């Protein structure tokens, strides 16, 4: 079910889409994700390659340029929507947690 698989994003998916809000070279994403997450999230080349392929297939990102083997990608409107939905979900989750934990912690 390819449509259902991006209803909620995993952490690597979320970070890849975040990075691609700006045009970025595929191979640089791994480093940028690590930097952005301060080393908390690491994405292996195999995982990155698979995810970029799937995002592209689902038109959540688009290839914007190519130089030799290097490819540049950027997020599409569909990708932004998925990112926004995930952002709302995470926010909601955080707010629910805050509310529930108040008085306990």
């Amino acid at each position: 079910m390819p449509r259902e698989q991006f209803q909620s994003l995993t952490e690597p998916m979320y970070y890849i889409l975040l990075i691609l809000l700006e045009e970025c070279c595929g191979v640089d994403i791994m480093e940028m994700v690590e930097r952005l997450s301060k080393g908390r999230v690491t994405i292996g080349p195999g995982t990155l390659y698979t995810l970029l392929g799937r995002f592209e297939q689902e038109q959540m990102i688009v290839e914007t340029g190519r130089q030799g083997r290097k490819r540049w990608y950027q997020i599409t409107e569909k990708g932004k929507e998925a990112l926004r939905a995930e952002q709302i979900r995470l926010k909601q989750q955080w707010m629910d947690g805050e509310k529930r934990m108040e008085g306990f912690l």
Partner: protein
Amino acid sequence: MKLFDKRIVALRIPGYETKAIEAFFSDMAEAGYLLHKLYGEWCVFRKTEPRKLKFSITYLSRVTVFDEDENETSMTYREYCEQAGWQFVCADYKTQVYCSDAARNLPEVETDERLWFQNVKKRFFREYVPFMILAPVLIWFLFWMAGTTTDFLNVQVFLCLLLLCFLCLYVVYEGIRYLYWEWKCRRAIDQGSPLPLSVNYRSMRLFCPSLAAMYLAPLCINFMPLLQEPDIAVPMLLYMVVVLVLGFCLRAAVKKRGTDPVTYMDFMALIVVVGLVIYFLSGAVLKPFLPEKEVIPFKNKEAASTISFSDFGYKPGENDVYFEGKEEWLGKQEWYFGNQENAHIQWHFSVSRWSWMNQLITRNFYKQQEISDTDLELVYEEGTTFVYREKKAPEEQVRTPGLKLYIETDHSFGRLYCENLPDTEEEILQLLVKDVLEREQEFFDKY
């Protein structure tokens, strides 16, 4: 197997056991053998300095058989891996192998276990499921095919079936192993625990029976029927040898010159075309030097069948009991019809393990053909072998001026009709006796 500085190991490399294979490659590297090439199940290692390396095996589903070794997909993937610090080792079709120094703290190539699990599932359904469905169908088909002929107990056919059964069982076994592993993984995902990835590679080694089944069974299916025909077997073997030798020479020459990379498909297409040209040319060139065939090709048979009670007008009943449960075990018969220019031959032969059955067949034949004892004259007698010639009626001499011979032994009966053969009647008779006795012996050897 050790060849100078090389070591060749046969391994099964199922997608879900990559951790075990990676562990095996690491252990080999530590022992001083670095993976050099992968050819299907065959791993070629080269002797190097012992090193502590960690390996990563990935399966690129986008690579197809029509792609070159270094194609767009694999090269792009290589770019990603090299950027992350992994070094390319070798690749075989979709399978890519990378390595890095074990001391370097590099992120794994596959960091998302669930994503990796999904890819393995996809691979399994694409590659194994068709085989698993086909395996029982193939077994059933082969047994059905073997059951329709009396050659079931032929040693070659039996061996072929045995290998195929082994291959089919192997495929089914792999499928069951995978399904068990998938079930364990699903459970691990539901519980939020890491996937159960084994690093025990001992069970990955392939041994002689599996390899024999893998490589010999398809060959047996394709070539066994052909190899049983001597006229085809020699050119076929010649063709295979020439194609293989020429293919290796071409591949080596192209590699040595270092010209444009040759794709596997180009290479295969080229050797097949060249092989076919050589095959046809060799047929044409060698024909004048090949020995001429027997004038009476008794050995060629056009049709064969088994003899059952229904051949004598009996309708089998449900409660009938037959020897070894097989009605057709009563005997076997063969027919041959051949024409060479104006020469003509018709040959009918039947054999049974019981002499009473043979007598029944013989009488039945004479009765059907309306031949009485007075129509036959004895022309040859040796032991229990008798040959009769049918006396020619005046009107028949004009219509069918051929020779009709009937041969009777304890267990077989044959009828030969021939016209305009260059051999003398005596020569034909000798050939006939020799052939019948050989066939009879062949029947008793087999059954």
